[in-house]
């Protein structure tokens, strides 16, 4: 029997890489439990960016001097790292964007406007973050296509039994879902959805913004056609993300943004587009941010995505157990086996804003609100939830501090 050992992650040791986690507020570090919104940054990433800005920075691609060459090598090197990180067949299929949202808009506009029309169906999930919901709803409206959602069950998992009914209503052209729900932590069955999408002749678009920081991503194993990620959620800087797309689809698509660098030839009569990936990268890109993105990928890879996933699984199990002890807390979402490191909950009778405010005074940072998932809030019958989310630097004591903080919330306002 082959047993692959997953190295155990030492969160206490890793915390030393993160300057913010060493800062004290009222004598203690903040229990930062909002990594699903954006992660903290390790020195390795900050140093790589400072070093790049200090010694290798110039605009990329067309400069003939050595500095520009170094900058170009660093920028394109980061693209190779992203490609390897998602197991893309080629780095030419990796397009740098501002974040996952822009990557998803790119697909919705550049593929959707030319390929959707009346009688076509665009299918997203009820769990979707607005970034993979609103662009599709909008482009469906612009093109006359119909917009459908896959509902969730009580545990926050997609009800795949509705798919046959949806397929009977028209020609399914796009299926767009997240790999991990940012609000409930649900791990969606993307392989199954991809198989179904392809049976319908549809493209499969995956928002992996909430998955890529926490578990291995393999676009070839998933079988999807497009996949979007954001650096800022995975220890990298804000301002850069990436779209991976299947080459034959990207080749057929019209550009998204237009301007410098994305062209082959420009005359007053006609402009022709550059080759991949530059066709989709107009203007000066997020150069230093991409370098930071590459450094973040190196950092995560050195720890191991399997180890990160396991660490967060243990934390989630612990958090759900601790919260279950409090009968005035309602948690949402699937069982821990099919859930990433995210726990959404409500405190009986107390609005999340008040919960988060009091927790802040206790040095516990979590998020309260609709988490850019209003259709999901509507489905759950709530206006907002509290959300605690975990990362490689989260330790169980921070969950204990969350629970102690919640006791205080209940005592003060309950």
């Amino acid at each position: 029997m082959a047993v692959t050992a997953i190295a155990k992650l030492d969160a206490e040791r890793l915390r030393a890489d993160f300057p913010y986690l060493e800062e004290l507020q009222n004598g203690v570090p903040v229990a930062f439990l909002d990594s699903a919104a954006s992660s903290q940054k390790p020195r390795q990433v900050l140093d790589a960016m400072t070093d790049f800005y200090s010694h290798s920075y110039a605009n990329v691609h067309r400069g003939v001097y050595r500095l520009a060459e170094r900058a170009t090598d660093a920028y394109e090197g980061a693209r190779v790292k992203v490609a390897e990180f998602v197991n893309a067949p080629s780095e030419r299929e990796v397009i740098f964007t501002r974040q996952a949202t822009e990557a998803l808009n790119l697909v919705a506009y550049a593929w959707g406007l030319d390929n959707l029309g009346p009688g076509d169906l665009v299918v997203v999930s009820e769990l979707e973050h607005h970034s993979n919901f609103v662009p599709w709803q909008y482009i469906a409206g612009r093109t006359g296509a119909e917009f459908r959602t896959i509902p969730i069950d009580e545990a926050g998992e997609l009800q795949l039994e509705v798919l046959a009914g949806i397929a009977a209503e028209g020609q399914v052209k796009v299926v767009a879902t997240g790999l991990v729900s940012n609000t409930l932590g649900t791990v969606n069955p993307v392989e199954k959805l991809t198989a179904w999408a392809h049976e319908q002749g549809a493209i499969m678009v995956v928002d992996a913004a909430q998955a890529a920081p926490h578990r291995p991503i393999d676009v070839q194993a998933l079988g999807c056609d497009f996949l979007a990620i954001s650096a800022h959620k995975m220890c990298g800087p804000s301002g850069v993300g990436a779209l991976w797309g299947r080459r034959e689809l990207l080749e057929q698509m019209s550009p998204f943004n237009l301007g410098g660098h994305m062209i082959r030839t420009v005359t007053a009569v006609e402009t022709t587009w550059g080759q991949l990936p530059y066709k989709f990268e107009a203007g000066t890109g997020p150069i230093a941010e991409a370098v930071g993105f590459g450094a973040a990928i190196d950092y995560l890879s050195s720890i191991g995505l399997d180890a990160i996933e396991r660490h967060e699984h243990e934390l989630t199990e612990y958090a759900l157990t601790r919260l279950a002890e409090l009968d005035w807390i309602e948690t949402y979402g699937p069982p821990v086996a099919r859930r990433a490191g995210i726990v959404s909950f409500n405190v009986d009778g107390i609005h999340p804003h008040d919960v988060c405010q009091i927790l802040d005074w206790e040095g516990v940072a979590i998020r309260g609100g609709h988490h850019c998932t209003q259709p999901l809030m509507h489905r759950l019958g709530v206006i907002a939830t509290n959300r605690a989310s975990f990362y490689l630097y989260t330790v169980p004591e921070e969950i204990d501090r969350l629970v102690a903080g919640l006791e205080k919330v209940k005592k003060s306002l309950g």
Partner: protein
Amino acid sequence: MSEFDQLYREVILDHYRNPRGHGVLEHPDAVAEGQNPLCGDEISITLAFDGDTISDVRFEGRGCAISQAATSMLTELVVGRDAAEVARLPKEELLEEIGIPLTPVRLKCALLGLGVLKVALNKGKGTPLPEEWSSSDDLSFR
């Protein structure tokens, strides 16, 4: 005074737990509702007039303690006053009543009810909508 006591001072908690003017008028002269999409706070207001005077006001809503308590205090502040005068009510007057330091995020919670009230006055009496409400990106009213 602790941070908790500063923000959730006794009068705020009292209004939150026992809101004044809570409910819906059966035969209102004007109705409006509003939401703060940042946190999901919701307020709806029904108004009755006696001539140009606000004779009664009721609100319903879901939201944080600050938004609900502020609206409760607002109802006490405006009953019996001239509609046009309330339409010009500076937000500072309500904030003074609330009397607690508010961060920018919580300020929006505190002022949601005032915005909804001014929209209702606009519908019922044609009073002008202050710039700050009609151009607000964060709050939505109807």
